């Protein structure tokens, strides 16, 4: 995959973000959130820059990035499908939902399709337990889902370019 997201423009934005947090106590987490937002991921190239500018060892940064599930080393696909496997959703059958999605898009949980279109993840509770089972595609939320509804939803994004 090309690394077009590592553009000079993005790095310039990152530098600004680092400057903004430089004087904050414990700046690493906020800076990593910014980096994840700017690049869509925190690959080693980005970690190196943060390490130099914040004067934090690269190993430590790598440790933190890989510890938290919201930081990723590679960008996710164009559409991030998250199926909630929180307790409330699970007892209402979200496991079957996620299996159906896997079958439809051919992507395993935690992976991205080779064309970069879909990523699939199992998430733990987005707090919409009243609507269980819940699935989100980027910012769209689908609640009270049944397995039968899944193909229609997936199709909508497959046809979006």
């Amino acid at each position, binding site marked *: 995959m090309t690394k077009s997201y590592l553009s000079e423009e993005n790095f310039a934005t990152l530098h600004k973000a680092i400057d903004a947090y430089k004087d904050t*106590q*414990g*700046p*690493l*987490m*906020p800076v*990593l*959130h910014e980096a994840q937002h700017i690049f869509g991921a925190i690959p080693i190239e980005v970690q190196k820059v943060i390490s130099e500018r914040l004067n*934090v060892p690269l190993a*430590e940064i790598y*440790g*933190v990035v890989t*510890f*938290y*599930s*919201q*930081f990723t080393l590679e960008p996710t696909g164009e559409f991030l499908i998250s199926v*909630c*496997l*929180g*307790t*409330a959703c*699970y*007892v*209402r059958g979200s496991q079957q939902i996620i299996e159906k999605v896997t079958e439809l898009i051919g992507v395993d949980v935690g992976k991205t399709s080779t064309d970069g279109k879909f990523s699939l993840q199992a*998430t*733990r*509770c*987005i*707090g*919409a*337990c*009243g*609507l*269980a089972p*819940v699935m989100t595609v980027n910012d769209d*939320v689908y*609640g009270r889902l049944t397995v039968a509804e899944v193909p229609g939803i997936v199709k909508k994004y497959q046809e979006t370019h």
Partner: protein
Amino acid sequence: MEYYRAHVLVCGGTGCSSSGSATIEEMFKTALAEKGLDKEVQVVRTGCFGLCEAGPICIVYPEGSFYSHVKKEDVDRIVNEHLLKGRIVHDLLYVDKLEAHSDIETSITNVTFYKKQKRVVLKNCGVINPEKIEEYIAFDGYQALGKVLTQMTPEDVVNEVKKSGLRGRGGGGFPTGMKWEFAMKSQGDIKYVACNADEGDPGAFMDRSVLEGDPHAIIEAMAIAAYATGARKGYVYIRAEYPIAVKRLGIAIAQAKEYGLLGTDIFGTGFDFDVEIRLGAGAFVCGEETALIASIEGERGMPRPKPPFPAQKGIFGKPTVINNVETYSVIPQIILKGADWFRSFGTEKSPGTKVFALGGKINNTGLVEIPMGTTLREVIYDIGGGIPNGHEFKAVQTGGPSGGCLTKDHLDTPIDFDTLTALGSMMGSGGMIVVDDTNCMVDFARFFLDFTVDESCGKCVPCREGTKRMLEILEKITSGKGTLEDIDKLESLAHSVKDSALCGLGQTAPNPVLSTLRYFRDEYIAHVTDKKCPAGMCKDLLSVVILDGCIGCTACARVCPVGAISGEVKKQHVIDQTKCIKCGACIPKCPKQVIVKQ
């Protein structure tokens, strides 16, 4: 000041937002403007009303008409009929499943779901617009902070909180007043207060609702805690998964600063206090207070051994008070109305109310707030409306992955910190997941272990290795390869992990296993000796069979992908279990519905 004759309250919580309440709100505004009513009727986006199942929810005041499941096409009718002509649209009102529907049920105050509740924590949720500080102030907001700063010493504040008997709502139930006292007495020129809003229990969302519906209450309470303990700076550590809550809290902090309720010289008393938001990044363990501290400092969120407790050595090594969102939310009211008022709810050892997130197999999913000491039966049947689709109640899990389950036998147990602990569960943060007879308890335990294995930080061996091995045994059992010896091994391993793990996550991770073993051992035994899953959930243990009553239409045989079904036309068919792959394709094809998984 502008005066409105009616208000339309639209729920803007995560539940209703996911059901499309933002569109409904916009449509109300447009429709009212078209009719020229926008100067007479105000549309307000509020926090959560609690009954998420009925979303999107709109309430029209002054009547208090409770419109549920509001659809786009309903908006015009409500505007034309109710708001223009004053005629309540009866067929769009919430139908109370628990009581025969009558005309009296037009007001929200008559809905059974709310009748047994006592809203203290959620007092302002679904009432005020959380993005306007003026509305919070109009409901006595920031008066408690004023009282504390002008009339009370830090010792008075700590004593009042101690007297109230308030216990930490994050799960442990540690007395809040004592925590504050430790921090007050700790030596140090710099101290911190922190709010734990890292609500990681999957299936719990009360903290989110408070932050979304009443964010100023948390800011005010943190300022009070800061005054009492001598801190000048506060951190709110909140899950990044809660974007609406993060946004509203940010707005609230900015407004409080603008009004001089945060910043320097608050109320002209020389007291300085500021709050900063820190985002979590998706690690359940960060809800543990020492892990939360590590995360704020910019490290991996790994717990540290206690002592030293955060009250002595917390954020950046300074004395720190950490409380949960719900704990903070009642502080201003305790200060204003007094400890005795707070003690008038709940039980002797667990005063006050508790918010629970009701979810799973229950009719009224949503948030409920009840006095401590209410029985499970009242929560599940009177408020929750019982189990849907005619199924039978089997168990309720409290405390999420750290808690345990309670069964039919415990329905009349009053809920408080101590009774739950005595039964092998725990209060936890307040998730309450109901399961029915179609849920397998072994699989349920496996589900929670799968979660803790994922979320274990890996620092201590008992948790890192122990939970993994427990999960392996559970997977062995649910796939039908378990033995009776495995059950014993599982139980002894669970006790070892409980006794030796470093932090709360590891120490409580075995609870779901131990409590299901305690109350549902027969299900474990059925899995290993009979190789059957009584609830019909564990796939590997099911077989698809054709019962008597087959008319021999051959529809099932034709759809079977592996040719496992045989039989003559117009005669009983049978499934060859050695060939069957349990795909279930035949089940919906049977016109007589005699093919079942069992």
